[in-house]
């Protein structure tokens, strides 16, 4: 079956050790986690994981169910890119002498809508948020200028395009008993 990039959104109780259990489901199915983000959610006490992985649909369905089955996982859902709004952020630490030397560098930074957060005589820090492809493209271009001292990018974060809020609805139902 064809492999696609899936984004899993998992809501769980905020409990130490749960992330371990979630990632173990991927390991057992021999899926690589491309990116992973953990954060609070809009719901009090509920944690939210955003995980991306390349998989076929059959496997991702099973993985999602096995994650949802874990005690203290509230819900797990999987999405393709056209079902979510997504964003990542990358930071580039760039050599200031190189930046001053080659005007194409700041031009490139502007062209990508990236922003310089901080600059001193030694380095400048550039922040770019966007989707993976844009960030990789910027990185490739900056790499060509041989000016990047450090690079880091975050995991994908995503919210659903759906107008229904399944987790909230489920929790409301449970609270009502």
């Amino acid at each position: 079956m064809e492999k696609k990039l899936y984004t899993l959104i998992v809501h769980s109780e905020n409990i130490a050790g749960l992330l371990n259990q979630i990632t173990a489901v991927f390991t057992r199915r021999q899926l690589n986690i491309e990116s992973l983000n953990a954060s609070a959610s809009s719901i009090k006490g509920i944690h939210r994981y955003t995980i991306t992985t390349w998989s076929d649909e059959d496997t991702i369905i099973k993985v999602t169910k096995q994650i949802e089955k874990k005690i203290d996982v509230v819900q797990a859902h999987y999405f393709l890119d056209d079902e979510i709004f997504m964003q990542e952020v990358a930071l580039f630490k760039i050599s200031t002498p190189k930046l001053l030397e080659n005007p194409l560098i700041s031009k490139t930074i502007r062209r990508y809508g990236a922003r310089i957060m901080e600059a001193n005589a030694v380095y400048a820090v550039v922040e770019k948020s966007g989707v993976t492809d844009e960030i990789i493209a910027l990185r490739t271009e900056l790499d060509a200028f041989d000016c990047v001292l450090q690079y880091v990018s975050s995991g994908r974060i995503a919210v659903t395009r759906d107008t229904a809020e399944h987790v909230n609805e489920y929790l409301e139902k449970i609270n009502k008993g």
Partner: protein
Amino acid sequence: MITGSEALMQALIHEGVDTVFGYPGGSIMPVFDAMYDHQNDFKQVLVRHEQGAAHAAQGYARASGKVGVCLVTSGPGATNTITGVADAMLDSTPIVVIAGQVAANFLGTDAFQEVDLVGITQPISKWSYQVRRPEDIAWAVARAFHIAGSGRPGPVVLDFAKNAQVGMVDFKPATIDVERGYIAIPETDPKSVEEAAALINAAERPLLLAGQGIELSNATEELRAFVEKADIPVGCTLLGLSTLPHGHRLRKGMLGMHGNLGPNVKTNECDLLIAVGMRFDDRVTGRLDAYAKQAKVIHLDIDPAEINKNVYADVAVLGDCKDTLARLTAAIDEAQHTEWIESFAPYEEKEWNEVIRHAIYPEEGPLRMGEVARAVSEASGNKAILVTDVGQNQMMSARYFQYTQKRSIITSGGLGTMGFGLPAAVGATFGAPDRTVCVFMGDGGIQMSIQEFGTIMETGAPVKMILLNNNYLGNVRQWQELFFGKRYSCTPMLNPDYMKIAEAYGIPSQLVVERDQLASAIDTMLATDGPFLLEVAIMENENVMPMTPPGGAVNVMMMNAMDC
């Protein structure tokens, strides 16, 4: 205020615990000390190895339907239970393992007998939790029993830090309410019941696969009502063998690798497969791409993650099968499938002539496993609980025992754990004190738990032990014969004198070598109060047949070694 250890006692009593299988050690001593004052509140069974404690808890749980409890120390005590935890996970057995742990301020320091038990058991347990404060005991114990016993049951591990055992707490038992992170029983979609009923009404050749879920849901009556109304033949999984009594017109035997020919062949001829509380294990299905491709599939299960895991279901009916079977029975029309049911007969006849007859009524040659199993079953009025170890002894006793009551088979299905049988049988005698418990073991498996003779000696647990001694790791020997060119690598085994071992433990015993001694020896065993070891000298190169070779299609079974 009471100590955490005493709080644990109160919590266990609150949960209705009547038996604890345990083994003490440094990090759990405060709890054992508290137990000293509760010897009249619940039975305290000292096993001889912590693996035995876990298996005994499993045997107890499966015989009684209640949650089994075992109590061990940290480090090696805890790791010794791991096999039992994994076994309980694969076979959905409700147990709670309570293990000592070093005090919270030592955690993470590689303190004496510290292991990361939660880390080790998380992937093989339903829930695993570290109790670090005495205040958490009430909630953690209540939740442990709730999670272990509800929904699809499974093992729960409580890692109990020593400071929580000795710290003081104002204890009030807790009960677990609705939880947002754990749905024990999924909602049943009424539409799925309608769709399933429509498929059932339209089916001409329906076949039902009965799994342990039916026992776990206490739904044997509902199963019977359903199949009788719809006139559907039934194949049982290994763990589901006692879901429909022997002799029932619709019971067509066991599924899977060493199951009966009829239900395996018919799996690939039916037009509708109704799977109830079973998970399409590969030992049941054989090669998946050759499994029931012609049939529509209805899958009734309590665990949404089982749906479409191995076999695609046209209709999935989620829920507790006690409820969903009853709903289905109400929704379907009465039907008759006489011709279809009769079409099993030629396969039954073929298996009878080519396999069963020789297995249970051999006229000459050394004693065989099947005849022993059938004779013991009959001598018990087909009412005993069969506990098995793993190997040929397991398959043969499961095949030739007859089951007339529910919860009559306790065997390690998913994990296939040698050494399971003896301690599980000990546990079963505590879980079902009114029933006869017969455990069949091989000469390999008995030695993996033989230390539990000590537990039997001490408690007097009335375990009827049948040792089928073929001087081989027989199941492996069979595979070597069939698939590895008869190269018997590390399977012949020199055995000790088991009569002397039994004698050393004060357990009455008898060795049977000749066929004409068998019946009276079995009678002696069953008539003896308390435990008994019956060793039977078994033909060394017997094979379990029929057999779906590993990776083969479910409907193509070898009837003897020649078919290989």
